[in-house]
């Protein structure tokens, strides 16, 4: 039980993050508990949130949640039920009622100081197009098409393209996807190991996997390679043809795999 309570407070601490908005919320809640006289308002911003807080810290609810609902890692989402923004804004309005202009400036400054600007995150970058996908991904995926209509394109792309390729065109299948590249999920994937994590890209090893006959018409026909990737040999020596370049990436087409697909589908409706 002690461990459960520790877990609950650890989640609360992580949720608080680097700012003091949670502290500000608790201050606003206490203020409204003392000052607010309107019964409806007290019900909404004081009593119901207090009840939800009690449920949140209750070890019984924690056990039910973890055992029957979702993982420990999402327990923080229970805090979404607390009307933090509403409570802080309402308490602020109550505090500054008689000195609105200066009061509003002070409140804005307090929220800014206690919070953190959304776009200060390191992963925030300028959008390159309406898809909000890097332009080089769009350019390269546009070049990927199958010679035979109705046959899916299989592609092998570097880690930085894995998340975006199928958001742009879902008809492109990937030899490995997000499940292989998320370190916390820890799945083993031989294609990913050979193509992405190997220090030097050994084409013989990669092509042996991607052209394996058991893949049938699912053999890989397109490869995207970063320009500065260490490779043991020139891709052209292995039957790969450069199709396009965009950004720091080169798109190759595996002509051997393409021919193999045609061979497999010979005398079928696909070829007619």
């Amino acid at each position, binding site marked *: 039980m002690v461990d459960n309570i520790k877990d609950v407070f650890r989640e609360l601490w992580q949720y608080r993050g680097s700012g003091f908005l949670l502290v500000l919320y608790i201050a606003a809640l206490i203020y409204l508990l003392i000052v607010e006289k309107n019964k409806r*308002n007290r019900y*909404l911003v004081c009593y119901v949130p207090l009840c939800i807080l009690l449920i949140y810290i209750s070890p019984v609810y924690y056990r039910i949640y973890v055992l029957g*609902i*979702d993982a420990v890692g999402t327990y923080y989402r229970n805090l979404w039920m607390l009307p933090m923004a*509403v409570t802080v804004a309402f308490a602020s309005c109550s505090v500054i009622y008689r000195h609105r202009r200066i009061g509003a400036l002070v409140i804005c400054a307090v929220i800014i100081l206690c919070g953190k600007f*959304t776009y200060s995150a390191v992963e925030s*970058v300028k959008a390159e197009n309406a898809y909000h996908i890097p332009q080089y991904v769009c350019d390269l995926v546009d070049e990927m098409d199958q010679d035979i209509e109705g046959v899916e394109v299989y592609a092998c792309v570097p880690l930085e393209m894995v998340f975006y390729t199928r958001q742009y065109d879902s008809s492109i299948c990937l030899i490995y996807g997000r499940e292989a590249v998320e370190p916390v999920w820890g799945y083993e994937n031989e294609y990913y190991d050979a193509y992405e994590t190997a220090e030097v890209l050994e084409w013989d090893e990669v092509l042996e996997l991607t052209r394996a006959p058991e893949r049938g018409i699912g053999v890989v026909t397109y490869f995207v390679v970063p320009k500065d990737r260490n490779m043991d040999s020139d891709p052209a020596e292995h039957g790969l043809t450069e199709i396009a370049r965009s950004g720091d990436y080169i798109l190759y087409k595996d002509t051997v795999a393409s021919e193999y697909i045609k061979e497999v589908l010979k005398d079928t409706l696909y070829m007619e």
Partner: protein
Amino acid sequence: MIIYQIIMCILILAVIPVCMGMNVVSGIRQRSLVLCLIYGYLLMMVSFELVTVPILLLTDYGNFKYVLWIYTPIIIFLSLSGLFLANKKGFLPQIRTDVNKTVLGVIKNREQLIVWSIAFVLLAVMLVLVSTRVIFDGDDAYYVTQSLIAQQKGSMYASDPYTGKATAIDMRHALAVFTMWISYVGTVCKVHTTILCHSILPLVFIPFAVIIYAKTGALLLKDKKEMLGYFVIFIEIFIMFGRVSMYTPEAFLIARTWQGKAVAANILIPITILGLFLVADTYYSDSNKTTPVWILLALTNAAAGVFSSLAVIFACVMIGSGGVVLAILKRKVKIVVNACLCCLPGVLYMLLYLYYMYFGWRSL
């Protein structure tokens, strides 16, 4: 084409929800245009869930075309019936009067004009930022791609979004059909769902979240109406500076607006809070007409499942605790009974979810 896309987006994301909302809001004491928009969206989601889930579970590969064929006439019918009902109950003239009164109230008062102008500028800044900046989120590879598969291939949850391989339905996510709703909007408006998710929906859902907060603020500040503009400014600053950790609703609203859990945190939960206030307001006014407001709460509960299965739990916990607290305050046991009845859609959803999780897909 672009004119068609703009008109259809305005129609589906603004006009139709308002008309649909008139079905449920026309009968309540606190009825307003904003409440029509809010509950119209919920009605839109619930009707979508009722159409999509049976198709998903009973047709081969979850044939998305059936959704298009069945859902479109339903929302047209519900919009028309909403308009008819509002007209019958004298709600349409009231909307016109209310809007005129509010706009004139702001324009005539210099302080209010300045405060509301600042609030609109802040909102505009937020919308410019979400349109021009990108915050990477790995979950997009799942949610956005699911929507795109339905749009481009016409099947629902039949292939793995990460690789494209054929797969069995992922029941953990499948009942939360918000991704398919996005796909529906994208298909009807002829907009690529990735563009819809990343460039259009934030322009709709962020102002929508602010509107919901503003409505709650308007009810809380009933005796200090002149403070509402300040309230909205504080809310907007809170959203803009709310990313103290990657777990807050504000962080989700800005970085993942189009994902079901973000909508649950920033739209559904605030609507539940608003619904609880409407219920409390009705009881404190000693009004006899309590059923319509309970229906609004039940609608909120039913809509939760569209966004995420977790949202169903949250909606039930909030409505349950809100009901118990109000029952104690008003000393009326019936309030708890009503609250439990409002949670019934959520309970049914969870039973279906658990059934498929434990016995597997197509086990019926």
